[in-house]
């Protein structure tokens, strides 16, 4: 068990390191010179050289990479002398455009992205799993076909199309919801809620369609298992057969996928946040792209990868707890 954990953690560290390296290489090769950007319009080659030296951009690749990685753990300082900029311990980089460490920028916006992710996750989990169950129970009947039709539609509608349509319908035409406006929960819970409602729905529609299909397929498959037949042969009530012998095996794989999807969402819902003007990580990333603020893009990429990798590991551990075949080895 401990060895298993160690293996997982090591694997995770390796993947994260590779993500770092890969991202760094891409940006190192592709990005326009940050020094030129910082320098602005009226710039002389001397100033640029000065800046490059200050930022360590004249160093070879590996040395720059090392500075970056060590910055993650011990922080780093950009430049020297009185103009030096300090970037504290988990230093994901520094945005010269906004004059802020990337980590702080992300930390400010994480609550918004987390709220979006958590709300959407609850919604799609509830809707997806229950629709999937109904579909499986009524397999081949009208309800099943109706739900299947809905899921196909849900999967097909791009979320910005859905987002804009909803906004047009609910806010502009029908006026059921007030125009989105960022307010803290403590100030106006109703406005806060209605503010997040549409992003939640938009994100949940596509995902719950996928979860519906998954649940349906798993339940139908599990119901054909021999042990379900055994349970019925024991004379258990249908409720008990369902609860104990069909649902648990059928829903366990969903844990895996849920963990991954949720973790992926924490790194920012780019399109949805942009469409609804929510000031989360996703929107920040989209804005940074428009402004070409490389350190921010890189920071967000790393953070999102970090969430996915962590999510992956949590799922693995959960699986170990849920599935006795993984938890206790074979003794036979």
């Amino acid at each position: 068990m401990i060895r298993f954990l160690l293996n997982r953690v090591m694997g995770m560290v390796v993947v994260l390191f590779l993500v770092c390296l890969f991202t760094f290489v891409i940006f190192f090769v592709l990005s326009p010179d940050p020094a030129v950007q910082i320098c602005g319009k009226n710039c002389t080659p001397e100033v640029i050289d000065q800046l490059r030296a200050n930022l360590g951009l004249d160093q070879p690749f590996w040395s720059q990479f090392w500075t970056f990685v060590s910055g993650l753990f011990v922080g780093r300082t950009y430049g020297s002398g009185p103009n030096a900029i300090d970037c504290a311990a988990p230093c994901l980089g520094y945005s010269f455009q906004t004059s802020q460490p990337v980590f702080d920028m992300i930390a400010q916006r994480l609550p918004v992205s987390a709220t979006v992710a958590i709300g959407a996750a609850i919604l799609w989990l509830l809707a997806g799993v229950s629709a999937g169950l109904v579909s499986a129970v009524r397999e081949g009947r009208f309800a099943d076909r109706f739900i299947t039709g809905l899921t196909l539609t849900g999967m097909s509608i791009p979320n910005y199309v859905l987002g804009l349509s909803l906004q047009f319908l609910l806010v502009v035409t029908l006026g059921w919801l007030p125009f989105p406006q960022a307010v803290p929960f403590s100030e106006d819970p109703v406005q806060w809620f209605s503010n997040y409602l549409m992003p939640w729905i938009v994100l949940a529609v596509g995902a719950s369609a996928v979860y519906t299909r998954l649940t349906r397929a798993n339940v139908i498959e599990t119901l054909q298992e021999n042990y379900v037949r055994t349970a019925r042969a024991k004379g258990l009530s249908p409720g008990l057969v369902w609860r104990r012998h069909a649902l648990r095996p059928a829903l366990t794989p969903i844990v895996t996928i849920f963990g991954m999807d949720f973790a992926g969402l924490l790194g920012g819902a780019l399109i949805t946040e942009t469409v609804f003007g929510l000031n989360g990580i996703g929107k920040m990333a989209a804005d940074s792209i428009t402004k070409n603020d490389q350190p921010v893009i890189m920071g967000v990429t790393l953070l999102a990868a970090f969430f996915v990798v962590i999510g992956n590991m949590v799922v693995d551990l959960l699986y170990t707890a849920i599935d006795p075949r993984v938890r206790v080895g074979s003794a036979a």
Partner: protein
Amino acid sequence: MSETPRDTENLLRVRDLTVGFHTAAGQVDVVKQLDFDLARGGALGIVGESGSGKSMTSLAIMGLLPKGASRSGSIEFDGTELTTLPERAMRSIRGDRIAMIFQDPLSSLNPYYTVGTQIAEAYRSHRSGVTRRQARKVAIEAMERVHIRDAARRVDHYPHQFSGGMRQRVMIAMTLSMEPELIIADEPTTALDVTVQAQILDLLAEIRSDTGAGLILITHDLAVVSQVTDHLVVMRDGDLVEQGAAEQIFTDPQRDYTRMLLDAVPRIDDEIGLLRTLTAPTAEEES
């Protein structure tokens, strides 16, 4: 064929049993108008090759036919007509008075629960007011009765921690905890090695003599059936070929198919020569 006396001593009385599937091509019958009886405490073997309908017969008795299958005819268990019994009443018989053992013990046990839980679960759902602790005790006792050593510890193990033969013992323990009047065993030893098979067959015999339960053994193996059961039903393509006392069928079979089947079984202590096969191609060989 159905000359058997209509005594009330019969535990199970099956008449005109037909199991059919609705397919796009119409109704396909996999069991056709089957008649047989099982005496109280008797052991009946249902023998046939693949596709003979023997497994469907057992599922029809249990009322566990797969989706899309339908049954007609009469199945009388201890004077109760099972085919018309409401599902709730059938459920109280299933597992309690009629228990079933399946072919593949690994896939027949739920990997997510300990064997103790799975043995106790039937007991708790059939006996009201049983505490968790009492049910656990019953499970341990049942496991001891099927000779699983160290039952008090093994009760908390999961199915994948047992070997094939041990898993089948767990399955049998599961049926035993309820003290059923009828045990239906569908190919209980087919997935097992021959030495383990011998142990399981011994165990079944032991349980029968201990509890006096009736047994229906469904198998393709004539040698197995000859050792365990006193009465035999031979099936082919859903039809009943012949039935009677085991000794009578093994010594004086009336039908060509039964004769061919008996000739085709390789013996361990018989002359060696060309194994006799039916000269006409069997149904399996036609296409």
